[in-house]
Protein backbone atom coordinates (compact mmCIF):
# COMPACT_ATOMS: atom_id res chain seq x y z
CA UNK A 1 0.00 0.00 0.00
CA UNK A 2 2.72 2.44 1.01
CA UNK A 3 4.73 1.23 -1.96
CA UNK A 4 1.77 1.95 -4.23
CA UNK A 5 1.39 5.47 -2.88
CA UNK A 6 5.09 6.08 -3.19
CA UNK A 7 5.08 4.96 -6.81
CA UNK A 8 2.14 7.25 -7.59
CA UNK A 9 3.88 10.25 -6.01
CA UNK A 10 7.11 9.56 -7.87
CA UNK A 11 5.37 9.03 -11.23
CA UNK A 12 3.31 12.21 -10.86
CA UNK A 13 6.02 14.34 -9.33
CA UNK A 14 4.75 17.74 -10.45
CA UNK A 15 1.23 17.03 -9.17
CA UNK A 16 2.67 15.92 -5.86
CA UNK A 17 4.63 19.18 -5.76
CA UNK A 18 1.47 21.26 -6.38
CA UNK A 19 -0.27 19.44 -3.52
CA UNK A 20 2.66 19.71 -1.12
CA UNK A 21 3.37 23.39 -1.83
CA UNK A 22 -0.34 24.21 -1.76
CA UNK A 23 -0.69 22.59 1.64
CA UNK A 24 2.42 24.33 2.87
CA UNK A 25 1.11 27.73 1.77
CA UNK A 26 -2.32 27.09 3.29
CA UNK A 27 -0.68 26.22 6.59
CA UNK A 28 1.57 29.28 6.38
CA UNK A 29 -1.36 31.65 5.82
CA UNK A 30 -3.17 29.93 8.69
CA UNK A 31 -0.18 30.58 10.98
CA UNK A 32 0.09 34.14 9.67
CA UNK A 33 -3.59 34.82 10.39
CA UNK A 34 -3.88 33.05 13.68
CA UNK A 35 -0.62 33.91 15.39
CA UNK A 36 0.64 37.15 13.82
CA UNK A 37 -2.68 38.72 12.75
CA UNK A 38 -1.28 39.00 9.25
CA UNK A 39 1.67 41.08 10.39
CA UNK A 40 4.11 38.51 9.05
CA UNK A 41 2.80 37.83 5.54
CA UNK A 42 1.76 34.24 4.82
CA UNK A 43 4.00 34.16 1.77
CA UNK A 44 7.05 35.04 3.86
CA UNK A 45 6.23 32.24 6.31
CA UNK A 46 5.72 29.86 3.37
CA UNK A 47 9.09 30.71 1.85
CA UNK A 48 10.69 30.30 5.25
CA UNK A 49 8.94 26.93 5.61
CA UNK A 50 10.35 26.02 2.21
CA UNK A 51 13.85 26.79 3.46
CA UNK A 52 13.18 24.66 6.55
CA UNK A 53 12.09 21.77 4.29
CA UNK A 54 15.26 22.29 2.26
CA UNK A 55 17.26 22.06 5.48
CA UNK A 56 15.50 18.85 6.52
CA UNK A 57 16.01 17.40 3.03
CA UNK A 58 19.66 18.36 3.14
CA UNK A 59 20.21 16.74 6.54
CA UNK A 60 18.29 13.56 5.66
CA UNK A 61 19.65 13.01 2.14
CA UNK A 62 22.99 14.76 2.42
CA UNK A 63 22.51 16.27 -1.03
CA UNK A 64 22.57 19.78 -2.40
CA UNK A 65 18.99 20.07 -3.67
CA UNK A 66 17.17 20.23 -0.36
CA UNK A 67 13.83 18.41 -0.22
CA UNK A 68 13.96 17.76 -3.99
CA UNK A 69 16.56 15.05 -3.33
CA UNK A 70 13.87 12.98 -1.60
CA UNK A 71 12.39 10.90 -4.46
CA UNK A 72 8.71 11.52 -3.62
CA UNK A 73 9.38 15.29 -3.54
CA UNK A 74 11.43 15.39 -6.73
CA UNK A 75 8.59 17.27 -8.44
CA UNK A 76 9.42 20.28 -6.30
CA UNK A 77 12.64 20.43 -8.27
CA UNK A 78 10.63 20.92 -11.45
CA UNK A 79 8.08 23.34 -9.95
CA UNK A 80 10.81 25.54 -8.47
CA UNK A 81 13.27 24.96 -11.28
CA UNK A 82 14.69 27.61 -13.58
CA UNK A 83 12.10 27.31 -16.35
CA UNK A 84 8.90 27.78 -14.36
CA UNK A 85 10.62 30.25 -12.05
CA UNK A 86 11.52 32.65 -14.86
CA UNK A 87 8.10 32.10 -16.45
CA UNK A 88 6.18 33.08 -13.32
CA UNK A 89 8.46 36.01 -12.51
CA UNK A 90 7.86 37.47 -15.97
CA UNK A 91 4.12 37.01 -15.46
CA UNK A 92 4.17 39.21 -12.33
CA UNK A 93 5.03 42.18 -14.54
CA UNK A 94 1.59 41.88 -16.09
CA UNK A 95 -0.67 44.68 -14.90
CA UNK A 96 2.17 47.06 -14.15
CA UNK A 97 2.03 50.05 -16.46
CA UNK A 98 4.62 52.60 -17.40
CA UNK A 99 1.94 55.30 -17.45
CA UNK A 100 1.17 54.81 -13.77
CA UNK A 101 4.84 55.00 -12.93
CA UNK A 102 5.24 58.13 -15.04
CA UNK A 103 2.45 59.88 -13.12
CA UNK A 104 4.39 59.67 -9.90
CA UNK A 105 7.34 60.93 -11.88
CA UNK A 106 11.04 61.10 -11.37
CA UNK A 107 11.22 60.51 -7.59
CA UNK A 108 9.93 56.94 -7.88
CA UNK A 109 12.52 56.18 -10.55
CA UNK A 110 15.20 57.62 -8.25
CA UNK A 111 13.78 55.56 -5.39
CA UNK A 112 13.88 52.38 -7.49
CA UNK A 113 17.48 52.85 -8.55
CA UNK A 114 18.63 54.07 -5.13
CA UNK A 115 16.85 51.20 -3.39
CA UNK A 116 18.29 48.51 -5.64
CA UNK A 117 21.82 49.93 -5.67
CA UNK A 118 22.02 50.64 -1.92
CA UNK A 119 20.63 47.22 -0.98
CA UNK A 120 23.00 45.54 -3.42
CA UNK A 121 26.02 47.45 -2.11
CA UNK A 122 25.10 46.64 1.51
CA UNK A 123 24.73 42.93 0.72
CA UNK A 124 27.91 42.91 -1.35
CA UNK A 125 29.88 44.77 1.35
CA UNK A 126 28.76 42.28 3.99
CA UNK A 127 29.66 39.36 1.70
CA UNK A 128 33.13 40.85 1.14
CA UNK A 129 33.52 41.50 4.86
CA UNK A 130 32.77 37.82 5.48
CA UNK A 131 35.60 36.80 3.22
CA UNK A 132 34.04 36.19 -0.18
CA UNK A 133 36.41 37.33 -2.90
CA UNK A 134 34.84 36.12 -6.16
CA UNK A 135 32.58 38.55 -8.01
CA UNK A 136 29.89 35.93 -8.74
CA UNK A 137 29.30 35.10 -5.07
CA UNK A 138 29.52 38.73 -3.93
CA UNK A 139 27.07 39.89 -6.61
CA UNK A 140 24.67 37.04 -5.84
CA UNK A 141 24.59 37.86 -2.13
CA UNK A 142 24.30 41.57 -2.92
CA UNK A 143 21.38 40.78 -5.23
CA UNK A 144 19.80 38.69 -2.48
CA UNK A 145 19.83 41.76 -0.27
CA UNK A 146 17.75 43.40 -3.02
CA UNK A 147 14.98 40.77 -2.94
CA UNK A 148 14.82 37.02 -2.49
CA UNK A 149 13.88 36.78 -6.16
CA UNK A 150 16.63 39.01 -7.57
CA UNK A 151 19.19 36.97 -5.61
CA UNK A 152 18.49 33.56 -7.15
CA UNK A 153 17.80 35.07 -10.59
CA UNK A 154 21.19 36.77 -10.49
CA UNK A 155 22.86 33.72 -9.01
CA UNK A 156 21.34 31.45 -11.66
CA UNK A 157 22.41 33.82 -14.44
CA UNK A 158 25.97 34.04 -13.11
CA UNK A 159 26.29 30.38 -12.16
CA UNK A 160 26.67 30.83 -8.41
CA UNK A 161 26.94 27.78 -6.15
CA UNK A 162 23.79 26.50 -4.49
CA UNK A 163 25.24 27.42 -1.11
CA UNK A 164 25.66 31.06 -2.12
CA UNK A 165 22.17 31.00 -3.67
CA UNK A 166 20.70 29.83 -0.36
CA UNK A 167 22.60 32.57 1.51
CA UNK A 168 21.31 35.07 -0.99
CA UNK A 169 17.69 33.90 -0.59
CA UNK A 170 18.12 33.96 3.18
CA UNK A 171 19.29 37.59 3.02
CA UNK A 172 16.26 38.51 0.90
CA UNK A 173 13.94 36.69 3.29
CA UNK A 174 15.35 38.52 6.27
CA UNK A 175 14.76 41.75 4.38
CA UNK A 176 11.13 40.81 3.55
CA UNK A 177 10.31 39.77 7.10
CA UNK A 178 12.01 42.83 8.57
CA UNK A 179 10.10 45.15 6.22
CA UNK A 180 6.80 43.53 7.20
CA UNK A 181 7.43 43.89 10.90
CA UNK A 182 9.16 47.26 10.91
CA UNK A 183 6.95 49.21 8.49
CA UNK A 184 3.93 49.76 10.74
CA UNK A 185 6.28 50.61 13.61
CA UNK A 186 8.26 53.32 11.87
CA UNK A 187 5.64 54.53 9.36
CA UNK A 188 5.07 57.73 11.29
CA UNK A 189 8.72 58.68 11.57
CA UNK A 190 9.31 58.37 7.82
CA UNK A 191 6.09 60.24 6.93
CA UNK A 192 4.41 57.21 5.41
CA UNK A 193 0.82 58.49 5.40
CA UNK A 194 0.15 59.57 1.81
CA UNK A 195 0.17 57.98 -1.68
CA UNK A 196 3.29 59.87 -2.81
CA UNK A 197 5.42 58.64 0.09
CA UNK A 198 3.87 55.18 -0.26
CA UNK A 199 5.15 54.99 -3.83
CA UNK A 200 8.60 56.18 -2.76
CA UNK A 201 8.53 53.62 0.04
CA UNK A 202 7.47 50.85 -2.35
CA UNK A 203 10.18 51.90 -4.79
CA UNK A 204 12.94 52.07 -2.19
CA UNK A 205 12.18 48.90 -0.22
CA UNK A 206 10.76 47.00 -3.16
CA UNK A 207 10.40 43.50 -1.69
CA UNK A 208 6.89 42.64 -2.91
CA UNK A 209 5.45 40.60 -0.07
CA UNK A 210 7.25 42.80 2.45
CA UNK A 211 5.81 46.00 0.99
CA UNK A 212 2.31 44.56 0.56
CA UNK A 213 2.18 43.24 4.11
CA UNK A 214 3.96 46.24 5.59
CA UNK A 215 1.54 48.72 4.03
CA UNK A 216 -1.50 46.56 4.80
CA UNK A 217 -0.52 46.70 8.44
CA UNK A 218 0.03 50.47 8.23
CA UNK A 219 -2.88 51.73 6.11
CA UNK A 220 -4.64 49.43 3.61
CA UNK A 221 -5.46 52.42 1.39
CA UNK A 222 -1.77 52.86 0.61
CA UNK A 223 -1.21 49.27 -0.54
CA UNK A 224 -1.81 49.71 -4.30
CA UNK A 225 0.53 52.74 -4.49
CA UNK A 226 3.40 51.02 -2.76
CA UNK A 227 2.93 47.72 -4.53
CA UNK A 228 2.71 49.48 -7.90
CA UNK A 229 6.14 51.01 -7.38
CA UNK A 230 7.50 47.80 -5.88
CA UNK A 231 6.40 45.81 -8.93
CA UNK A 232 9.20 47.47 -10.88
CA UNK A 233 11.80 46.87 -8.19
CA UNK A 234 12.34 43.15 -8.68
CA UNK A 235 12.30 43.67 -12.46
CA UNK A 236 14.88 46.42 -12.21
CA UNK A 237 16.92 44.27 -9.85
CA UNK A 238 16.77 41.35 -12.29
CA UNK A 239 17.89 43.71 -15.03
CA UNK A 240 20.73 45.39 -13.10
CA UNK A 241 21.86 42.50 -10.89
CA UNK A 242 23.41 40.15 -13.44
CA UNK A 243 24.49 43.02 -15.70
CA UNK A 244 25.64 46.46 -14.53
CA UNK A 245 25.94 45.63 -10.83
CA UNK A 246 27.75 42.36 -11.52
CA UNK A 247 30.15 44.11 -13.91
CA UNK A 248 30.79 46.82 -11.31
CA UNK A 249 31.45 44.10 -8.73
CA UNK A 250 33.82 42.32 -11.08
CA UNK A 251 35.66 45.60 -11.59
CA UNK A 252 36.41 45.71 -7.84
CA UNK A 253 36.89 41.96 -7.37
CA UNK A 254 38.35 40.79 -10.69
CA UNK A 255 38.17 37.06 -9.97
Amino acid at each position, binding site marked *: MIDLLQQALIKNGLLAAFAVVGGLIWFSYFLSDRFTHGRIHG*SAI*AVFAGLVL*AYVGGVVMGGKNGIADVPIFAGIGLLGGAMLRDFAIVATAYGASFDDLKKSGLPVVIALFAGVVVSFV*CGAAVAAAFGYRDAVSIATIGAG*AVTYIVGPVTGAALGATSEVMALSIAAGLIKAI*LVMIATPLIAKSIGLDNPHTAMIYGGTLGTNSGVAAGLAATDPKLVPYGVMAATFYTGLGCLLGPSVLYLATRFIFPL
Partner: protein
Amino acid sequence: MVIYGVALLALCSLVGLVIGEALGALLGVKANVGGVGFAMVLLIFITGWLGRRGRFKPLSSGGIAFWSGMYIPIVVAMAAQQNVVGAIKGGPLAFLAGTLGVVLSFAMVPLIARIGRPKREEKP
Protein backbone atom coordinates in the same frame (compact mmCIF):
# COMPACT_ATOMS: atom_id res chain seq x y z
CA MET B 1 -8.65 31.81 -24.90
CA VAL B 2 -6.43 31.06 -21.95
CA ILE B 3 -3.73 29.59 -24.15
CA TYR B 4 -3.26 32.93 -25.94
CA GLY B 5 -2.18 34.55 -22.71
CA VAL B 6 0.07 31.65 -21.78
CA ALA B 7 1.56 31.59 -25.28
CA LEU B 8 2.21 35.34 -25.23
CA LEU B 9 3.83 35.01 -21.83
CA ALA B 10 5.98 32.13 -23.06
CA LEU B 11 6.96 34.06 -26.17
CA CYS B 12 7.95 37.15 -24.18
CA SER B 13 9.92 35.00 -21.73
CA LEU B 14 11.75 33.17 -24.51
CA VAL B 15 12.54 36.33 -26.47
CA GLY B 16 13.69 38.08 -23.28
CA LEU B 17 15.90 35.15 -22.31
CA VAL B 18 17.40 35.00 -25.81
CA ILE B 19 18.14 38.74 -25.68
CA GLY B 20 19.71 38.17 -22.27
CA GLU B 21 21.88 35.35 -23.63
CA ALA B 22 22.89 37.44 -26.64
CA LEU B 23 23.74 40.45 -24.48
CA GLY B 24 25.75 38.19 -22.20
CA ALA B 25 27.71 36.85 -25.15
CA LEU B 26 28.18 40.39 -26.47
CA LEU B 27 29.54 41.63 -23.13
CA GLY B 28 31.69 38.55 -22.77
CA VAL B 29 29.90 37.66 -19.55
CA LYS B 30 29.23 33.96 -19.05
CA ALA B 31 25.72 34.82 -17.97
CA ASN B 32 22.22 35.63 -19.06
CA VAL B 33 22.28 39.41 -18.72
CA GLY B 34 18.89 40.73 -17.62
CA GLY B 35 16.86 38.28 -19.71
CA VAL B 36 14.01 38.14 -17.22
CA GLY B 37 13.93 41.94 -17.06
CA PHE B 38 13.75 42.29 -20.83
CA ALA B 39 10.96 39.72 -20.94
CA MET B 40 9.01 41.75 -18.36
CA VAL B 41 9.38 44.99 -20.30
CA LEU B 42 8.31 43.17 -23.46
CA LEU B 43 5.24 41.75 -21.72
CA ILE B 44 4.20 45.14 -20.32
CA PHE B 45 4.52 46.81 -23.72
CA ILE B 46 2.78 44.11 -25.74
CA THR B 47 -0.12 43.59 -23.33
CA GLY B 48 -0.49 47.37 -23.04
CA TRP B 49 -0.52 47.76 -26.81
CA LEU B 50 -3.04 44.93 -27.28
CA GLY B 51 -5.15 46.26 -24.43
CA ARG B 52 -5.40 49.72 -25.96
CA ARG B 53 -6.72 48.15 -29.17
CA GLY B 54 -9.18 46.01 -27.26
CA ARG B 55 -7.50 42.89 -28.61
CA PHE B 56 -6.61 41.39 -25.25
CA LYS B 57 -9.64 39.54 -23.88
CA PRO B 58 -10.06 38.78 -20.17
CA LEU B 59 -9.67 35.05 -20.75
CA SER B 60 -6.30 35.58 -22.43
CA SER B 61 -5.15 37.74 -19.55
CA GLY B 62 -6.31 34.94 -17.26
CA GLY B 63 -3.55 32.81 -18.75
CA ILE B 64 -0.99 35.34 -17.55
CA ALA B 65 -2.70 36.11 -14.25
CA PHE B 66 -2.61 32.41 -13.36
CA TRP B 67 1.17 32.21 -13.68
CA SER B 68 1.56 35.53 -11.89
CA GLY B 69 -0.42 34.01 -9.03
CA MET B 70 1.78 30.91 -9.11
CA TYR B 71 4.93 32.89 -8.46
CA ILE B 72 4.82 32.67 -4.68
CA PRO B 73 4.29 28.87 -4.75
CA ILE B 74 7.09 28.57 -7.29
CA VAL B 75 9.38 30.69 -5.10
CA VAL B 76 8.44 28.43 -2.17
CA ALA B 77 9.33 25.34 -4.23
CA MET B 78 12.56 27.04 -5.25
CA ALA B 79 13.39 27.77 -1.62
CA ALA B 80 12.69 24.14 -0.75
CA GLN B 81 15.46 22.90 -3.03
CA GLN B 82 18.23 25.23 -1.91
CA ASN B 83 21.33 24.11 -0.09
CA VAL B 84 20.23 25.52 3.26
CA VAL B 85 22.51 23.23 5.24
CA GLY B 86 25.44 24.87 3.46
CA ALA B 87 24.06 28.36 3.97
CA ILE B 88 23.54 28.01 7.70
CA LYS B 89 27.28 27.71 8.12
CA GLY B 90 27.35 31.35 6.92
CA GLY B 91 24.72 32.41 9.52
CA PRO B 92 25.31 36.02 10.45
CA LEU B 93 26.21 36.94 6.87
CA ALA B 94 22.65 36.57 5.58
CA PHE B 95 21.27 38.37 8.60
CA LEU B 96 23.62 41.34 8.27
CA ALA B 97 23.32 41.52 4.49
CA GLY B 98 19.53 41.68 4.75
CA THR B 99 19.30 44.04 7.69
CA LEU B 100 21.83 46.67 6.62
CA GLY B 101 20.07 47.34 3.32
CA VAL B 102 16.66 47.66 4.97
CA VAL B 103 17.89 50.15 7.57
CA LEU B 104 19.50 52.38 4.94
CA SER B 105 16.49 52.05 2.62
CA PHE B 106 14.08 53.13 5.33
CA ALA B 107 16.31 56.11 6.06
CA MET B 108 16.28 57.12 2.39
CA VAL B 109 12.46 57.17 2.07
CA PRO B 110 11.82 60.62 3.61
CA LEU B 111 14.81 62.08 1.72
CA ILE B 112 13.64 60.88 -1.69
CA ALA B 113 10.00 61.70 -0.88
CA ARG B 114 11.06 65.33 -0.51
CA ILE B 115 11.87 65.42 -4.24
CA GLY B 116 8.83 66.38 -6.28
CA ARG B 117 6.38 66.02 -3.47
CA PRO B 118 2.98 67.30 -4.65
CA LYS B 119 2.08 70.67 -3.10
CA ARG B 120 1.01 69.89 0.40
CA GLU B 121 -2.42 71.02 1.48
CA GLU B 122 -2.01 72.34 4.99
CA LYS B 123 -4.15 70.32 7.31
CA PRO B 124 -6.32 72.41 9.57
